[in-house]
């Protein structure tokens, strides 16, 4: 599916040539064309096939697979999900079929059935070598464009998460850069004091793009039983509840690095997506909203098209990062109270 010439071309959003007849939502990113900025988020669309017939995958931008690890993982005990105010908490535990079965059972469907949708494989590991093995072994396969590196997982070596530890993250990204020429997109963790530091670091280590953001750590307690609702005690909070945080962190990441960004977190409408795009995202991912309504990704796509048409904007790229700030910029941005 990936044209050989495109593999490995680095990101950067090219403005459309003036007499380009291509659709308003199309962008060239990571060396290939995305017909739409709307992708499905990792963990919320399985391996694509599960939504076949419900979501016209080839009409949208693409999808990110469920996390793939070297070994199969059985995941966490139930309950794995629960509802929170305007959101949900999940602790799936990176339940996945493992690399071998991903290659033999999941990738072929993506390769054979998707023409225009771009596929990223979400990658996890417990060590740098785990990640490197997934990337190296996948790299010879067809059916996907690049990697989204999930760093919101514990680093067996240091005890911290890769995504909150600058040294561990730098080592990881640097190592993966040696394993592939395909686009590497690092999915940033939100619970850090300054996401810009991590965005910059990824750029320096050779990443091609950023995804912002993964879920927030959260917990729910069944007060009658005095027990956590979630089998794994805590999990990740997603959904509309985190939208303002996601927009903010995308904006911060986009000011700290020049990499293209996939904006993620609570998106359920074109207006939500536009907030991310104005904040600096070139692409967006729809996750939890798919559970509420599987047609929401398509609705976001159509709503974006309608918005551009209504405002006579010829290309979405004009809106990427086009947020206008008040002058002079306020000194205390980011603080509350």
């Amino acid at each position, binding site marked *: 599916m990936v044209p050989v010439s495109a593999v490995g071309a680095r990101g950067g959003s090219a403005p459309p040539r003036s007499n380009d007849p291509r659709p308003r939502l199309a962008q060239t990113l990571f060396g290939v064309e995305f017909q739409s900025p709307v992708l499905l988020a990792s963990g919320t669309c399985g391996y694509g096939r*599960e939504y076949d017939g419900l979501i016209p995958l080839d009409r949208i931008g693409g999808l990110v697979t469920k996390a793939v690890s070297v070994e199969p993982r059985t995941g966490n005990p139930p309950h794995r999900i629960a509802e929170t105010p305007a959101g949900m908490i999940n602790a799936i535990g990176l339940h996945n079929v493992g690399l071998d079965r991903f290659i033999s059972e999941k990738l072929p469907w993506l390769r054979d059935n998707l023409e225009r949708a771009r596929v990223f494989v979400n990658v996890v590991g417990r060590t740098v070598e785990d990640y490197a093995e997934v990337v190296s072994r996948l790299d010879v396969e067809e059916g996907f464009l690049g990697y989204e590196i999930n760093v919101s997982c514990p680093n067996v070596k240091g005890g911290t998460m890769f995504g909150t530890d600058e040294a561990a993250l730098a080592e990881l990204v640097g190592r993966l850069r040696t394993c592939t020429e395909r686009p590497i997109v690092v999915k940033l963790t939100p619970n850090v004091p300054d996401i810009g530091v991590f965005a910059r670091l990824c750029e320096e280590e050779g990443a091609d793009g950023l995804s912002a953001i993964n879920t927030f750590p959260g917990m729910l307690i069944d007060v009658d039983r005095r027990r956590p609702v979630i089998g794994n005690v805590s999990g990740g909070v997603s959904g509309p509840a985190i939208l303002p945080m996601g927009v903010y962190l995308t904006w911060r990441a986009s000011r700290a690095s020049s990499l293209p960004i996939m904006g993620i977190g609570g998106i359920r409408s074109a207006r939500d997506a536009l907030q991310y795009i104005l904040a600096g995202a070139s692409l967006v991912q729809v996750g939890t909203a798919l559970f509420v309504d599987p*047609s929401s990704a398509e609705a976001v796509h159509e709503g974006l098209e309608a918005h551009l048409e209504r405002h006579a904007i010829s290309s979405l790229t004009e809106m990427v990062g086009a947020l206008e700030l008040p002058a002079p910029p306020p000194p205390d941005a980011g603080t509350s109270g």
Partner: protein
Amino acid sequence: MTAASPLRHRASVLSNRRVAQDTWWLELDSPGIAAASRPGQFVMIGYGIENTAAPFLPRPFSVGWRAADGRVGILLRAFGPGTTRMARLRPGEDVLLLGPLGRPFELGRDRPIVCVAGGVGLAPFLFLADEARTAGRDVRLLYGERTGGRVFDPELLASLAGGPAEVWTEDGAVGQRGLVLEGIDWSADRVLLGCGPSLMLRALAESAAERGVALQVSVEEHMGCGVGTCQGCVVPRADGGWAKACTDGPVFEASELAWSP
């Protein structure tokens, strides 16, 4: 797992009546889902993407009944915030429906069917009993509730299920006093089906296993997507892995699952 893709559409509420304490019978207008459903399958019912108040995520409900005119009946018990709000749905409002979903009961041929329902586990059997009886099958419907106040309006029940149920209540206020399991005749030539709270299903599964009787159960677990993408709804398999309640189930052979606490 399921052959055709599920349908997704907004469906009008046709009626919603209280049929017992905390319990409502909701009728929705959904010809497509009515036509495609098989007993044991479920639908996800939600308020749509504009809504962020509970239920934010759609909730799974068994298809309780269907009519040729496109009505789909849902037996709904107000349980937490989501179902409490849904109990207040009024005619003219609409909901977002996704379905039919999941693996239905396997009824085989000819043999008598015994349905064992606990609480709103009654839902799939209304539909099942009605159609199986119409098809000439012998159907026993055993139905237990903790208290008499929660017993589904017997007249409506009989009209939906094509005949009455044998009711058991723990307080003895309606029907026989005791647990519904006591009513089962453990004969191996029956198609034995169970749906209800997990403690009841476990007791049922253990009894069936002891007696070497085959049993199909419909299980419940928190659901996100309902279609197999999120891996949220897993239940433990007998072989140590997990099964997805939404696409591998909700109906399982009891022997496929692990029943230890």
